[in-house]
């Protein structure tokens, strides 16, 4: 056999055009691709920072009562939404890109929150109800005489920052390495993650755990020396959250666009193929799971000072499911989709629970069902979807032409033989 080339119409056309075979066709951006650049890094970060600036500006400059004024309440509400957005980003990274449906990301969020909460508790000092300079109120109430060993160091801000990453990261590492090594996947993995967060919730409800039990950690006074009751501190936290989200987004974007991101996507689509190509899927899954858990931890840490409390309710399985719903509605597999989903659903929740609280879960469930049925790619997939149809119609006519040329080339070869 003389030729090692499969002679398809395309390679024939190539050689006919005397184009060198080893050149790849130019990647001309289509209209859809241009459009999808709306979700590109620069646009998203730009939008994020501009809206953060807008909120800050309107809060500070315009007086109360002015049309442009953004109230302090709204500022901390937006701060909360941005925390959710960062959390959604974390969920999207493992679910949307790697196909790991984690129903336990609430656990990582809450652990990050508890790390922050411990620090804030220690900042209270002797201003607590019992006035004990060392022990938080709930420990005095339980007649404890000294801090448990795992509270050592909690008064340091650096310890807090480290724990925000280490706590969730370690849990993700231990759970992930066990689960992925034994090749647990799909719905079984989801159920296990759900079980983990539920178990943690029950554990944190116990007073003996030393995290405030039922009531959790609350009654915070100040962070880094700034009073948490001050509107300016709230604004500062909002800005910090916006910056954290921007950094988280850039990190996620870097991961997703690197070869790493492609390996992870490949694992989602055909894990066994990835293994036979020579990658170790369990290592990749573990890595992305840990990174995602850390992002969720940061989101939790920023959330706690803004809402002023962390309690075991944050571990509740329902919360974790809600996070997945954000991503599903926003559009999994696109980073900006996760942000849109988190903000839109949270906003809807705020409005809805004010009007008719009982109906919220039904509305959320209904929304989830509708999106799954009619918008498999979520809100983010809406516009490109419509345009894609047009695009593929154009392409269909293209392939018709190439078929014709294929036929003619076959005729030619027959004639020559």
């Amino acid at each position: 056999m003389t030729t090692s080339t499969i002679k398809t119409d395309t390679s024939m056309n190539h050689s006919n055009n005397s184009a060198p075979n080893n050149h790849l066709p130019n990647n001309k951006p289509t209209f859809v691709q241009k459009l999808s650049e709306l979700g590109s890094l620069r646009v998203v970060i730009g939008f994020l920072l501009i809206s953060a600036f807008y909120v800050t500006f309107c809060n500070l400059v315009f007086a109360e009562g002015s049309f442009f004024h953004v109230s302090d309440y709204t500022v901390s509400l937006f701060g909360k939404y941005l925390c959710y957005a960062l959390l959604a980003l974390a969920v999207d990274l493992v679910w949307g890109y790697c196909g790991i449906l984690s129903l336990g990301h609430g656990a990582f969020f809450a652990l990050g929150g508890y790390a922050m909460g411990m620090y804030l508790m220690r900042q209270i000092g002797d201003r607590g109800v019992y006035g004990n300079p060392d022990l938080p109120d709930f420990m005095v109430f339980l007649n404890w005489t000294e801090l448990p060993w795992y509270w050592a160091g909690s008064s340091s801000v650096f310890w807090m920052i480290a724990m925000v990453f280490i706590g969730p990261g370690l849990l993700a590492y231990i759970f992930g390495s066990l689960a992925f090594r034994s090749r647990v996947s799909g719905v079984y993995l989801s159920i296990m993650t759900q079980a983990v967060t539920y178990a943690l919730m029950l554990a944190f409800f116990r007073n003996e755990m030393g995290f405030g039990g039922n009531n959790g950690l609350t009654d915070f006074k100040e962070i880094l020396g700034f009073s948490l009751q001050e509107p300016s501190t709230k604004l500062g936290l909002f800005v910090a959250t916006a910056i954290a989200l921007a950094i988280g987004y850039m990190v996620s974007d870097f991961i997703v666009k690197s070869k790493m991101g492609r390996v992870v996507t490949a694992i989602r689509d055909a894990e066994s193929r990835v293994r036979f190509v020579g990658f170790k899927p369990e290592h990749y899954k573990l890595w992305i799971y840990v990174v995602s858990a850390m992002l969720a931890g940061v989101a939790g840490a920023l959330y706690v000072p803004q809402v002023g409390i962390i309690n075991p309710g944050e571990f509740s399985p329902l919360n974790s499911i809600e996070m997945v719903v954000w991503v599903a509605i926003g559009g999994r597999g696109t980073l900006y989709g996760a942000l849109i989903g988190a903000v839109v659903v949270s906003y809807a929740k705020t409005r809805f629970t004010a009007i008719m609280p009982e109906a919220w879960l039904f509305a959320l469930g209904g929304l989830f069902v509708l999106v799954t049925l009619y918008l498999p790619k979520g809100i983010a997939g809406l516009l490109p979807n419509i345009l894609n149809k047009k695009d593929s119609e154009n392409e269909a006519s293209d392939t018709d032409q190439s078929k014709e040329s294929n036929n003619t080339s076959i005729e030619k070869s027959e004639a020559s033989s």
Partner: protein
Amino acid sequence: MIVDKSGSPLLADENIKPDTRHGVILYVEDVSVSFDGFKALNDLNLYINDGELRCLIGANGAGKTTLMDVITGKTRPDTGKVSFGQQVDLLQLSEAEIARAGIGRKFQKPTVFEELTVFENIELSLAGDKGIWTALFHKLTGEQKDRIAEILTTIGLSKECYYPAGRLSHGQKQWLEIGMLLAAEPRVLLVDEPVAGMTGQETERTAELLTSLAGKHSVVVVEHDMAFVRSIAKQVTVLHQGSVLAEGTMSEIQSNKDVIQVYLGEEDGSDDYAKENEKSVSEKTELESKPQEQTV
């Protein structure tokens, strides 16, 4: 990682190279596998020579796919020995390590990364470091790009380069998967039913491609399509009930008494073959008709 007896990493990942001084690249010796008492492989012996093109045929349940699973590390045999060259014991390695050592596999059902483009599919399959940190900061070199372009030309998918692989036709996916194997620069290619569901023309092209690969690589093809096997194979191995029934050239196989007996379904074989699907029926008739032609 494998270590020698003294514990030094003689055969660390990058050092795994088959020793083929005796001309044999793959040794499968006395391998048995059973699933819940059913013997999928039964004391099977198979030697693949370096650079040869070997076809494996056999009815459904003869153990062809199980054999591939054993070689690629997906299934661990109950007993027996599988080695790559003389030294590398494949039973000690994980699937990923076996793949990196140079044994590529194409699945029965084409498995490509549907959401990634054709280009990216090949990119991921390129030989090289498969670690996490490399992947995170990896940039394609010009050399690698040329290599990808070359492979795309070989498999005839240059034009579809930036298409998502999920949009390719069935035949194109099969080729892409072969291209992914080539990118890994393997010594041995295990190809499971490469022409299933292909048109006649596509089958022909695939045959050309596989024949051209032999020599540089050792190619083991599992196939039901007897016309296809006849067109490419020099050496054919017939599997039956988990062990090798016959080995030889196509004409030797077709005149082999055991093979004819099994395929004609005399006595002991008849029950098994009543259940078979259309493909093996046609296979049967093919084998049936061929010896008759020869006797005439």
